[in-house]
C-alpha cells in the first residue's frame, strides 16, 4: 500500500526588539537570571500590559515578506494554563484575529518549484525558562517572560521531509533578511514544532497526527519526519492505529520516542484579553513599513550573480547573514569592485571574524574602509601583499587605509625612472644570474626580483620590475 504524508510546521521566531512585548523590561540574550524583569512580567496585582509598537512593525515586515494578508483589526486573547514559567497563569496571544493570514513561501525541491501556504501568523509573548534540577526542584528565570514571538503556522501542504527542510530553510532566510529576528536555533530565537500524519493514497481524510516539539536543527527535522513516515506506515500496515501523541527525536538512535499520548485538544479557555483594546493596523502604516523592507536574499543573490558576475558559492557565503550581505552592499555602494570586495569579505574578513570569535558589528573595519583599500589595489597604489598589512591595521585599529598607506610610505613603486637604474644595478652586480638566465634557468629572474623587493622593502610593483628585468637581461 502507498501512503501519502501531510506535514505541517509551527515556527516561533523571537522578534528583535530592545524591550519586551507588554513591558519595557530590556531584552538581551544571556543576561543573569531574573535581572531583566519588572512588576508587569511578574504579574503583580494591578499591573497592565502596554503593547510595544515595534513588535507589530517587525511582525508586519515578515507578513509582507511572505505575501500574507494583514488583518486591519486584530486583538489579543488569553490562553489559560498553569505553569511556573508563566506568572499570570495565562499567555497573551492572538487566537481569534491573528496579525496576518494566507501567506506563502516558494520552495524548490528536486528542480520543482512549489508554493507552501502559510495559514496564519500571530504575535504572542514568550514564557520564562525552567531548569529542572535532580533534587526535586525546578529553577525559574523570568527574563524570557514577555519576549515577543511571532508564530508562523504553515498549511499542511508539505508532502515529504525534503520539502519540509526546504520550507524551513526558505522561511528562515526570508525572516532573517527582514531583520525581524536573529533566527538562531542554538539561541532559541527560532524554534520548530512539526506534525506529520500519513494516509493511504486516495483517501481523503487526513490520518492521525503526531507532533514533535522543539527540534534542535533542520537536520533533526528531516530525520525525525523520515523516521515517522516509516514508523507510521508500519503501524498501519500491521493493522494498528496511529496514536494522537507527542514524540521527541532522539539524536543518538535517529529514532523518535513516545513522550505522551493525547486524548484530545487541550482546553485553554481562550477569550479576548480584556486589558488591551483592539489594534487597528492602517494601510498607511503598512505602506510605511513596506518602504523600509530590506531587499530579500533572493533579490540580492540575483544581483550578485547576474549583475556582479559572482560565483554561486561566493554569493551564498555573502548571503549567510544579512549583516555580511549588508556590509558587502555598502562596500560596493562606496565604490568597491564587487568581485574583489567578495573575495576580501569571504576570505580575509571571515577569517578574522572566525579567528577572533567576533561579529561584523564588533570590528573596526567599515565598508568604506574596505572600498578605499580595494581602490588602492585596483589603481596600483599598493600591491596585494601590502594590502594585507593595510587590512590588518585597519581591522584592528580602524585606521583609514589611504592615510595609513601614505603615512607609512607604502605606496607601490611603479615609476620606471626610479626603477630602471635599480634594475641595471642589480643585474650588473649579479653576473651569475645573467649567466643562469642565458642558460634558460627561469629561477634566475625570481632571484633578481627578490633582490629588488628587498631593496624597496616590498614596495616595487612586481609587474613593472618583471618587465624591466626581462628587457635588461635580453640586452646582455
Amino acid at each position, binding site marked *: 500500500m502507498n501512503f501519502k504524508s501531510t506535514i505541517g510546521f509551527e515556527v516561533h521566531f523571537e522578534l528583535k526588539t530592545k*524591550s519586551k512585548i507588554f513591558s519595557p523590561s530590556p531584552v538581551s540574550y544571556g543576561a543573569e537570571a531574573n535581572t531583566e524583569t519588572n512588576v508587569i512580567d511578574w504579574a503583580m496585582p494591578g499591573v497592565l500590559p502596554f*503593547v510595544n509598537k515595534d513588535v507589530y512593525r517587525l511582525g508586519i515586515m515578515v507578513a509582507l515578506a511572505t505575501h500574507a494578508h494583514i488583518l486591519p483589526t486584530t486583538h489579543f486573547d488569553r490562553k489559560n494554563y498553569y505553569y511556573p514559567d508563566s506568572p499570570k497563569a495565562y499567555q497573551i496571544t492572538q487566537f481569534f484575529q491573528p496579525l496576518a493570514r494566507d501567506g506563502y513561501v516558494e520552495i524548490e525541491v528536486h528542480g520543482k518549484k512549489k508554493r507552501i501556504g502559510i495559514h496564519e501568523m500571530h504575535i504572542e509573548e514568550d514564557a520564562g525558562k525552567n531548569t529542572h534540577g535532580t533534587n526535586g526542584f525546578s*529553577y525559574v528565570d523570568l527574563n524570557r517572560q514577555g519576549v515577543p514571538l511571532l508564530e508562523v503556522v504553515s498549511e499542511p501542504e508539505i508532502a515529504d521531509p525534503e520539502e519540509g527542510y526546504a520550507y524551513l530553510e526558505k522561511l528562515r532566510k526570508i525572516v532573517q533578511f527582514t531583520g525581524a529576528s536573529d533566527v538562531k536555533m542554538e539561541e532559541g530565537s527560532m524554534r520548530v514544532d512539526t506534525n506529520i500524519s500519513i494516509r493511504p493514497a486516495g483517501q481523503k481524510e487526513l490520518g492521525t497526527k503526531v507532533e514533535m516539539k522543539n527540534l534542535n536543527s533542520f537536520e533533526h527535522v528531516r530525520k525525525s519526519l523520515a523516521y515517522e513516515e516509516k514508523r507510521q506506515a508500519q503501524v498501519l500496515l500491521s493493522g494498528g492505529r496511529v496514536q494522537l501523541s507527542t514524540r521527541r527525536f532522539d539524536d543518538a538512535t535517529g529514532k523518535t520516542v513516545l513522550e*505522551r499520548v493525547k486524548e484530545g485538544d*487541550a482546553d485553554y479557555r481562550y477569550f479576548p484579553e480584556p486589558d488591551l*483594546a483592539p489594534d487597528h493596523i492602517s494601510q498607511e502604516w503598512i505602506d510605511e513599513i513596506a518602504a523600509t523592507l530590506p531587499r530579500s536574499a533572493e533579490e540580492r543573490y540575483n544581483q550578485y550573480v547576474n549583475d556582479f558576475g559572482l560565483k554561486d558559492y561566493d554569493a551564498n557565503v555573502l548571503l549567510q547573514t544579512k549583516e555580511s550581505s549588508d556590509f558587502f552592499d555598502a562596500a560596493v555602494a562606496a565604490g568597491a569592485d564587487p568581485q574583489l570586495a567578495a573575495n576580501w569579505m569571504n576570505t580575509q574578513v571571515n577569517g578574522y571574524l572566525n579567528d577572533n570569535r567576533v561579529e561584523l558589528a564588533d570590528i573596526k573595519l567599515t565598508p568604506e574602509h574596505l572600498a578605499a583599500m580595494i581602490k588602492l589595489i585596483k589603481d596600483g597604489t599598493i600591491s596585494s601583499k601590502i594590502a594585507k598589512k593595510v587590512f590588518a591595521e585597519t581591522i584592528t585599529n580602524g585606521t583609514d587605509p589611504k592615510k595609513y598607506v601614505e603615512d607609512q610610505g607604502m605606496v607601490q613603486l611603479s615609476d620606471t625612472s626610479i626603477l630602471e637604474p635599480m634594475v641595471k644595478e642589480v643585474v650588473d652586480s649579479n653576473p651569475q644570474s645573467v649567466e643562469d638566465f642565458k642558460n634558460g634557468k627561469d629561477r634566475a629572474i625570481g632571484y633578481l626580483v627578490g633582490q629588488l623587493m628587498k631593496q624597496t622593502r616590498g614596495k616595487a610593483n612586481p609587474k613593472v620590475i618583471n618587465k624591466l628585468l626581462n628587457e635588461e637581461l635580453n640586452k646582455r
Partner: protein
Amino acid sequence: MEITEDTIKHVATLSRLEFNEDEIGTVTEQMSSIINMADQLSEVDTEGVDETVQVVDRDTVFREDKPEHWQSRAELMKNVPEQANGFIKVPVIINKDEDE
C-alpha cells in the same frame, strides 16, 4: 445554557480547584444562575451590529520600543518563598503539557 455537574468538574480541574460532593451541587446551582443571568444578553437584538470584543470604543495606544529598568532583582525577589542563585525555586514539574 445548561450547566451540569460535569461542566463544573471539568472547569474546576482546568482551574486547579477542588470541590467535595456537597460543594459541587451548590456551585453548579450558583454557576448556573450566573450564566443564565448573563444569557439574558442574547435577548438583545444585535441585527446589523458589528461584532466586538470590547465595550469601550477605543484603540490601543502603542508604546515605543525603549527599554527601561524598573525594579531590581532583589526587590522583585522579596515575595519569593525560596530562591537559589537568582532563580525562583519551585517544586519540580517535569511534564509541561500533562493536562493536554
